[in-house]
């Protein structure tokens, strides 16, 4: 009995046990099916989703910055190039104590106070997550020394970067401009232009001049590496590469030798010069003195140097050729003369008597001629050769401001020339309408008189003067002044010439043009106001001198240069073209506080022409002797 129960118990126990085993098996089946359905969900239903996530995880796009396009002069001389250098860069956001880190760094790599100042300035202008250079152009030993100690400096890295270099420095800055680090304003512009992608990896952008206006062509197309990265963001391998396309190569119309001669000819004078080929509008030289070294801006300028440049009374940062307006003074007369002839106000042979001043009928105010006592009987030819003011006071009065404005604006006064770099001012060619708009005042007859001699409200940039001169030189054909001759695509090698700069041809009687020319030729002959310009030249030069007043001279007072502080002396002006019969070069020169145009600007013009037309290099330093040339 007892045994029986035990056996039954055992069997029941076994049955219960096996039931539990079967239940377990069922339990396992259910849970494995649960897993399988989870796998199905992840790997089939949601596969695309996770596939995308995995791809995004692993693939990172690394931009490859293109080489910025070279800039050459008309003869192929390199004006702007790139060089590769190692830079020591700091990402401020990754650094706790910036000063301490910099001090530590200077134990391994020399960091000068000016490097630190420059870095401070960069720091102010940049975002903290950007990698900012503290030292550039590291030597190989410095790179090696840092590499060994790299681990001590999280957030500090060495990069190989391309830098812009302007071999001629100051000489080329008036037209090349410079590049600098991209700031927030630049970023906004890039975004607005839809170029954000192309500027990934680019730190620099053209800020002025050619570098700015041709930014698009010079920048090139950013390439990129598709790289596989690990979870730490380190590059593991490159999956594909789209190479960058270097920026286009710009060939300028500038003749860098001519530019150099012009720049040197100024000596210590401040001023500007623009030389144009009147046959096509090509700018051969464009000088603004004093200048600045654009290379300073490339690696970031330190605040001290910047302040020195910005606060200097010489205003080296001002581009006097484009961005400064001066009264054109007597250089305005040839255009006035043409206006009088073409508008039939005076014939070439009409003469006036010059008592040394001009009076408006019924007014006692004397508009003084520069020559006390006057020039006597003056016709058109003489009015230009001796630069008679009275002749033009009367002519201006005769024409009236609106006729003057309408005729002379054809020479480009009072509006931008459209040169292919930015920063140009439009000058002022006054009219009744202009005065009303500008000053809410009526135009008086007395306002017109000084306009006749390029004073009063008249203002022009040296570039405008050169442009007007080039129109004069080409017998009335206007070509837009420009700096870029051709653009070569660095990928296809295809050269693209700048489209013809022809603007319009003026409807002026050729005889009148010939009259004015012959008078301007005689300006450079003995008896003219600029005899030294033509002296002994194997070609004929047509020119006109000018003086722009810096301070007003009261009625009855006499202007005596030596009595006046240098900075308040008159500006000297000269426009010229040569050879007079078939002009190849037209130019405008402004010498600030240079006094008389013929004396200070004349030799500069002559050196330029001699080089450009004859290939003659100037004799040593020009002797700026103050000989008693006829005053203007």
């Amino acid at each position, binding site marked *: 009995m007892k045994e029986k129960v035990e056996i039954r118990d055992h069997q029941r126990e076994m049955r219960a046990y096996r039931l*539990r*085993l079967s239940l*377990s*098996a069922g339990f396992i089946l259910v849970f494995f099916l649960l897993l399988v359905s989870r796998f199905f969900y*992840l*790997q089939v239903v949601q596969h695309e989703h*996770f596939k995308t996530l*995995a791809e995004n995880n692993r693939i990172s796009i690394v931009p490859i910055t293109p080489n910025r396009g070279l800039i050459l002069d008309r003869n192929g001389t390199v004006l702007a190039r790139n060089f590769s250098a190692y830079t020591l860069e700091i990402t401020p956001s990754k650094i706790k104590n910036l000063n301490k880190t910099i001090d530590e760094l200077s134990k391994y790599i020399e960091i000068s106070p000016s490097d630190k100042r420059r870095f401070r300035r960069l720091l102010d202008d940049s975002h903290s997550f950007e990698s900012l250079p503290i030292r550039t152009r590291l030597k190989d030993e410095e790179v090696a020394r840092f590499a060994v100690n790299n681990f001590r400096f999280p957030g500090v890295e060495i990069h190989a970067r391309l830098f812009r270099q302007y071999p001629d420095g100051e000489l080329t800055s008036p037209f090349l401009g410079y590049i600098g680090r991209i700031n927030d304003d630049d970023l906004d512009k890039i975004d607005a232009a839809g170029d954000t992608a192309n500027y990934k990896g680019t730190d620099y952008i053209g800020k002025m001049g050619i570098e700015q206006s041709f930014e698009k062509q010079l920048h090139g197309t950013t390439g990129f590496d598709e790289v596989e*990265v690990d979870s730490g963001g380190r590059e593991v391998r490159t999956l594909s590469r789209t190479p960058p396309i270097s920026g286009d190569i710009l060939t300028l119309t500038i003749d860098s030798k001519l530019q150099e001669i012009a720049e040197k000819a100024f000596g210590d004078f401040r001023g500007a010069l623009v030389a144009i080929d009147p046959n096509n509008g090509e700018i051969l030289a464009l000088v603004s003195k004093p200048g600045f070294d654009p290379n300073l801006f490339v690696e970031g300028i330190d605040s001290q140097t910047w302040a020195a440049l910005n606060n200097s009374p010489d205003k080296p940062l001002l581009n006097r050729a484009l961005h400064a307006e001066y009264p054109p003074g007597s250089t305005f007369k040839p255009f006035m003369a043409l206006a009088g002839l073409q508008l039939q106000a005076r014939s070439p042979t009409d003469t006036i008597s010059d008592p040394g001043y001009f009076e408006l009928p019924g007014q006692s105010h004397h508009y003084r001629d520069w020559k006390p006592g006057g020039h006597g009987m003056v016709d058109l030819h003489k009015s230009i050769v001796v630069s008679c003011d009275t002749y033009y006071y009367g002519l201006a009065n005769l024409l009236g401001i609106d006729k003057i404005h309408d005729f002379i604006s054809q020479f480009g006064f009072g509006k931008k020339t459209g040169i292919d770099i930015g920063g140009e001012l439009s000058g002022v060619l006054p009219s009744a309408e202009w005065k009303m708009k500008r000053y809410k005042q009526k135009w008086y007859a007395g306002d017109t008189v000084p306009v006749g001699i390029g004073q009063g409200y008249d203002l022009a940039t040296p570039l405008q003067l050169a442009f007007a001169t080039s129109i004069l030189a080409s017998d009335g054909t206007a070509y837009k002044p420009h700096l870029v001759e051709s653009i070569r695509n660095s990928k296809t090698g295809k050269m693209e010439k700048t489209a013809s700069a022809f603007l319009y041809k003026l409807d002026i009687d050729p005889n009148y043009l010939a009259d004015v020319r012959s008078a301007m030729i005689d300006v450079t002959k003995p008896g003219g106001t600029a005899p030294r310009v033509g002296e002994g030249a194997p070609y004929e030069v047509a020119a006109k001198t000018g003086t722009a007043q810096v301070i007003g001279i009261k009625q009855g007072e006499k202007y005596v240069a030596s009595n006046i502080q240098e900075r308040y002396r008159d500006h000297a002006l000269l426009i010229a073209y040569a050879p007079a019969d078939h002009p190849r070069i037209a130019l405008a020169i402004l010498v600030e506080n240079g006094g008389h145009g013929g004396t200070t600007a004349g030799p500069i013009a002559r050196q330029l022409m001699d080089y450009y037309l004859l290939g003659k290099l100037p004799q040593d330093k020009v002797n700026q002797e103050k000989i008693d040339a006829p005053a203007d």
Partner: protein
Amino acid sequence: MHPLIRRLHRTLSHHIDSFLLICTMILISLGLAVLFSASDENLVKVGSQVVNITVACVVMWAIANVPPHQLMRFALPLYVAGLVLLIGVALFGEISNGARRWLNLGITRIQPSELMKIAVPLMLAWYFDRHESALGLKNYAIAAVILLVPVLLIARQPDLGTAILIASSGFFVLFFAGLSWKILGGLFVSGLASLPILWSVLHDYQRKRLLTLLDPSQDPLGAGYHTIQSMIAVGSGGPFGKGWLHGTQAHLDFLPEHTTDFIFAVFSEEFGLIGNLFLIFLYSLVIARGLSIAARAPTLFSRLMAGSITMTFFTYCFVNMGMVSGILPVVGVPLPLISYGGTSMVTMLLGFGILMSIHTHKKLVKT
């Protein structure tokens, strides 16, 4: 065949279950292949895993040759020793990764919780076998104490994964020992009721893991990172996988612990759904064999051991794969026979050794 070789072969294979052995070997080979990929083709690591496997196989063979009734004799000393060591850990243990799991014995560092994975079920099975003739509620209560003391000690280390595994291995012993359905139901209900209490004793990081499970995207760079990355690995594998050595998640270091606890993500990424099904199939074969051995086991001890070992093996598989595929929280549970690491390999094959011993010694017991 030379008689000597035949004798050697017989000696070696006499107590080995060839079905279980073959399944195990396939899984282990698969594991080595995945490890090769997961370790970035690091042959040194694969080599050291081969050493682990060899040691584990020797252990399995040795245990398989020990009859179950001999094994029972180890139960009490092993359990007591394990418990002493656990208390030692709690008092003098070394802290690594914020948890106190290791005990430095001077000669070597040991992790007593690993020992308990075998010692606890062995002890319980031995205890029930001893009291087989009259199993009462009192016995189950004592068994519960035997189980809970080490589990709580381990959970306090904290090592939730191991604690859960040991608790479940002990529970399976109780379950197969015939713990009444009423008590089971009561346990289930009181378990649910005690969840808030359990929540309050959990460590912050453990709570975080549980919360993260509900919504991994809540903390993508913190606690949710592991889960998100392993789900990306599994999901991006797709139906057919990216191919061996071509998984990107592991090779680019997005996956944490990709040779150990998360090796399944690597496998899943490279072999896809097809691979996963094959792996589950292999595991099912092992489990089926284990259950069939359990069903035919002659003594209570061997029935409880075989059932518990098999079910624990399943628990490992499920918890690991569930964790990697994002349906269970991240707990430190390796994927059996695949994950890199000597301890878990030895523990697994030791369990299989016991299964084989039970299977091959039952005739001897009967006669």
